[in-house]
């Protein structure tokens, strides 16, 4: 079983508020469906067309509808443009299963790139006509070294009227993708690089909505985050063993929790004072544990960082903060970059000192904080499970 790793982002046409391209993602137990749609025109109209198209397609396919029914519904739902007397929006549908099997259906978007270690491969497609639309369908298998890249025509045309007469053009986009894929590259890095390139050609004033989407399969990165001592102290060792035996990395947030795990491992908690800041307590080192931090305060700071990271307007400013050497930044970075699935092991023991008046981080605060963290990590498209212990 693999993890389907997806990344996508857009540059909005210069001068517009809304993007006329839209990507919709649906996560199913055995697969992920992505629909990239490019609406006719730009601005509000295009945005509505693209959003409707991708949402209808994603929702219907998720429920198991056929491609015929889906396209039929889209055609009959899209509002007709009053100027052009047309209801039109392109789409690229990509469904990737956990075992690497892929289904694609393309209508009028630049065709998908299949890239592997510096090479580009041709995808064998079948032509079908549904509702007078020519659709290209394909079924194939993805391996761990390959990546699928779909783009809207804003990428292929990047630079038109600016630095390049004919735009970037498909062959050159392909060449660029081959170049950057020589070394193992992540989906996030791929879309960032391609969009940056487009933005350069457009000289910062994109002539069209420009979208890049990348998909690959890889092993799932799991994190087991252990915070708070178990309700019943007799369970300490049993639970610590269960956590250490689990698949994935272990992260410990909480002073007492760290002491429990160190006792179970029969080792010392070494605190690294060089990571101490006035606002965030330092990290500690315990063998076999990826990261050891204090609890409520650190988690609170990490939540603030992830919240900003999830907000497109604040994201660019938060990136340097995520690189700082303190426990909260390290925790946030781990959850953003190295985590596909987060298991939260939440201890329910109550620290009497935290219930005291004047201490505003009591037990309820802790539990709500964990729920908020879980929500934010889910917002990044990752799977989260909470286990109360």
């Amino acid at each position: 079983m693999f993890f389907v790793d997806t990344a996508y982002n857009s540059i909005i046409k210069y001068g517009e508020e809304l993007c006329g391209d839209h990507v919709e993602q649906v996560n199913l137990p055995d697969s992920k469906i992505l629909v990239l749609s490019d609406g006719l025109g730009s601005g509000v109209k295009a945005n509505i067309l693209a959003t409707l198209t991708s949402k209808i397609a994603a929702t219907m396919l998720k429920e198991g509808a056929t491609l015929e029914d889906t396209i039929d519904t889209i055609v009959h739902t899209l509002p007709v443009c009053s100027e052009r007397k047309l209801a039109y929006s392109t789409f690229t549908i990509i469904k990737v299963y956990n075992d690497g099997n892929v289904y694609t259906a393309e209508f009028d978007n630049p065709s998908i790139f299949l890239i592997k270690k510096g090479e580009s491969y041709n995808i064998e497609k079948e032509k079908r006509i549904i509702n007078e639309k020519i659709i290209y369908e394909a079924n194939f298998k993805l391996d761990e070294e390959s990546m699928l890249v779909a783009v809207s025509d804003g990428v292929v045309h990047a630079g038109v009227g600016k630095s390049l007469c004919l735009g970037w053009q498909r062959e050159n986009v392909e060449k660029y993708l081959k170049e950057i894929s020589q070394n193992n590259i992540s989906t996030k890095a791929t879309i960032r690089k391609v969009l940056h390139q487009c933005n350069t050609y457009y000289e910062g004033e994109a002539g069209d909505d420009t979208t890049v989407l990348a998909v690959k399969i890889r092993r799932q990165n799991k994190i087991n985050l252990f915070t708070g001592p178990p309700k019943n102290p007799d369970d300490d060792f049993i639970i610590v063993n269960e956590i250490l035996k689990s698949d994935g990395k272990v992260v410990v947030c909480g002073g007492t929790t760290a002491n429990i795990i160190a006792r179970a491992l029969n080792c010392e908690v070494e605190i690294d004072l060089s990571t101490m800041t006035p606002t965030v307590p330092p990290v500690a080192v315990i063998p076999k544990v990826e990261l050891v931090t204090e609890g409520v305060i650190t988690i609170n700071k990490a939540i603030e960082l992830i919240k900003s990271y999830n907000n497109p307007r604040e994201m660019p400013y938060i990136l340097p903060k995520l690189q700082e050497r303190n426990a909260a930044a390290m925790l946030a970075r781990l959850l953003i970059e190295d985590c596909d699935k987060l298991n939260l092991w939440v201890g329910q023991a109550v620290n009497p000192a935290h219930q005291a008046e004047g201490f505003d981080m009591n037990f309820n605060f802790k539990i709500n904080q964990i729920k908020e963290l879980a929500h934010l990590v889910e917002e990044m498209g990752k799977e989260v499970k909470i286990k109360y212990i």
Partner: protein
Amino acid sequence: MVINVCIGSACHLKGSYDIIKIFEKLIEENKLSEKLSVKASFCLGNCVGAVSVKFDDKVYSVQPDTANEFFESVVREKVC
């Protein structure tokens, strides 16, 4: 010898950071770095008396404004 300052949640909020900095400064000023060091430690199990400071196997409650006094009265005689 070692002064252990708790940096658990409650102690952090009550000023562990400042206390660590005060102890580090006092050690430097008194040229005691060969005999004495400051370390941080996770929950010393005395959250009610935050900030917990462990010295010579005993846990004390210290605040940033009593740190100097604690150093003079408890630590100095043991070390010197």
